[in-house]
């Protein structure tokens, strides 16, 4: 199920502007890797290159290699649609489909792949919602609008939607930044369960969160505004937070940044 991601010498552009330069890192399967760094350092941009979501922005392009268990997802014969089915994504702002019920939201991705019978869908819906720790809260109102849930519930609904297709990797782009501390805790607990089965990459602004949930941490920084973001260092989370090799990392971690 879970797969290894190897990024080598990645350069990312928005039109003529280079947003990220020379990123090389490896994400281990069944682990949580956190991307941290100041705003504009390119950590979200790098995340979005891992499932080819970066290129949906007009003018955006990518150089370099991203290998998923050895296979280059930017290979010329690779369909980005298949990449995105294999690598799920959860966004910063909870984005359930507003016109769909809770049930329909969970199966939206599944229905893209083939025809399912209703009993099959029922099983997946329960399994995915249980997986996202949402089942008990919504099991009696699956036909209600997904957009009617609270923010934290909506985000867990989006996680359920992402894992319903059983992806190999789960990318999370600041999944808790719009949530209150209790919902945040619920999602962090959930991530610990999900990492048994998935490879997880999370972008976060919250350093305590990175320290709490992740196994490895990658610190991104940019030399100056308008310059491309770079990967400063990547390593075990305990090492990055307690004993970083780079001065910039230590400054950022300890709050002496800038």
């Amino acid at each position, binding site marked *: 199920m879970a797969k290894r991601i190897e990024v080598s010498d990645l350069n990312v552009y928005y039109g003529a502007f280079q947003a990220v330069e020379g990123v090389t890192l490896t994400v281990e399967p069944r682990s949580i890797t956190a991307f941290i760094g100041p705003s504009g350092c390119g950590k979200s941009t790098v995340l979005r290159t891992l*499932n080819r*979501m970066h290129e*949906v922005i*007009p003018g955006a392009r990518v150089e370099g290699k991203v290998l998923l268990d050895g296979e280059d997802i930017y290979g010329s014969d690779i369909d980005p*649609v*298949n*990449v*995105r*089915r*294999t690598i*799920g*994504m959860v*966004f910063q*702002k909870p*984005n*359930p*489909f*507003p*016109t*769909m*019920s809770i049930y329909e939201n969970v199966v*939206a*991705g599944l229905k*893209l*792949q083939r025809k399912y019978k209703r009993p099959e869908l029922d099983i997946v819906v329960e399994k995915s919602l249980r997986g996202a720790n949402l089942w008990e809260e919504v099991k009696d109102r699956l036909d209600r*609008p997904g*957009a*009617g849930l609270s923010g934290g519930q909506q985000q867990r609904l*989006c996680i359920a*939607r*992402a894992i319903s*297709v059983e992806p190999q990797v789960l990318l999370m782009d600041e999944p808790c930044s719009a949530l209150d501390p209790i919902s945040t805790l619920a999602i962090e607990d959930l991530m610990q369960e999900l990492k048994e089965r998935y490879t997880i990459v999370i972008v976060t602004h919250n350093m305590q969160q990175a320290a709490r949930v992740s196994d490895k941490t990658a610190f991104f920084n940019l030399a100056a505004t308008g310059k491309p973001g770079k990967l400063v260092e990547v390593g075990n989370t305990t090492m990055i937070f307690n004993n970083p090799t780079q001065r910039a990392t230590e400054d950022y971690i300890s709050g002496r940044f800038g």
Partner: protein
Amino acid sequence: MQPGAISGSKDANKGRWLDVGFRRLSVGSAVLVLIILVAIALFLLQQALPAIHKDTANFLTEQQWRPDDTPAVFGIAALLYGTLVTAFLAMLMALPVAVGVALWLTQYGPRALARPLGYVVDLLAAVPSVVFGLWGLIYLVPKMIPLSAWLSTYFGWIPIFKSDAIFGKSIFTASVVLAIMVLPVIAAVTREVFLQVPRENQEAALALGSTRWEMIRLAVLPYGRSGLISAAVLGFGRALGETIAVALVLSANYTVSAHLLTPGGNTIAANIANTFGEAGSLGRGALIASGLVLFVITLAVNFGARAIVARRREFTAAT
């Protein structure tokens, strides 16, 4: 802080007067719209009912339109048929194309091209209908003859395409002109609606592994559904009520004919424009009665659309 700082008279506050004034202005405007609607309905009823009383035929089922004969014989059947069929055919042709145009302008087209083309569509929607009518009469009617002949030759076994080898100013031609007229209206409104679809919904669909079309089906069309229905109703209303363009491209008669390619047919609005000038007093009453029918249809279409939109209200983006 000084005591009494918040205890001044309500009326002392200048902003308060503006607030009250603005509220009265907006309530007044809303009431005015209602008054106009009721006044139109009353006028139509008051003028139409006496004329319908003097009708010796059944107003709803009679096809002939001879209100100034003695005895007066007139009925709405042929006009109603022509109105509904031209408007329906126009929508059948225009709606899919308009949605296609709006999707291209918002989803598929390169931005540098889509933006100016969007303005062109807006511009087309503002072209006066008499211009469409003249263009239809002088340019389109001759062009429709070979197309009608072709349809009749190869699909003549379907009753609606059967014809007696005379083509041109037919219901079909009128429908095509109407379709071209309502196309930019629907496309312009639909484009506006599709532009409102939140980027995060589209990204959610793409991140699930949707192709572009699947993303449109998952995120764009459902989100734009109520706006799309509104656009369709706007277009349908314009097609139903269109007067001068239809009057120009139809050779009017008063029969209900399933052969859409054969010259003839008429619509309520075109008939009013064509005959009001020469109509006698009963003739005018009869024409106003036909106007009342058009009014009722338009209201019914609008309410129908509202009902469809309201049915899934809690699932719209507004919640």
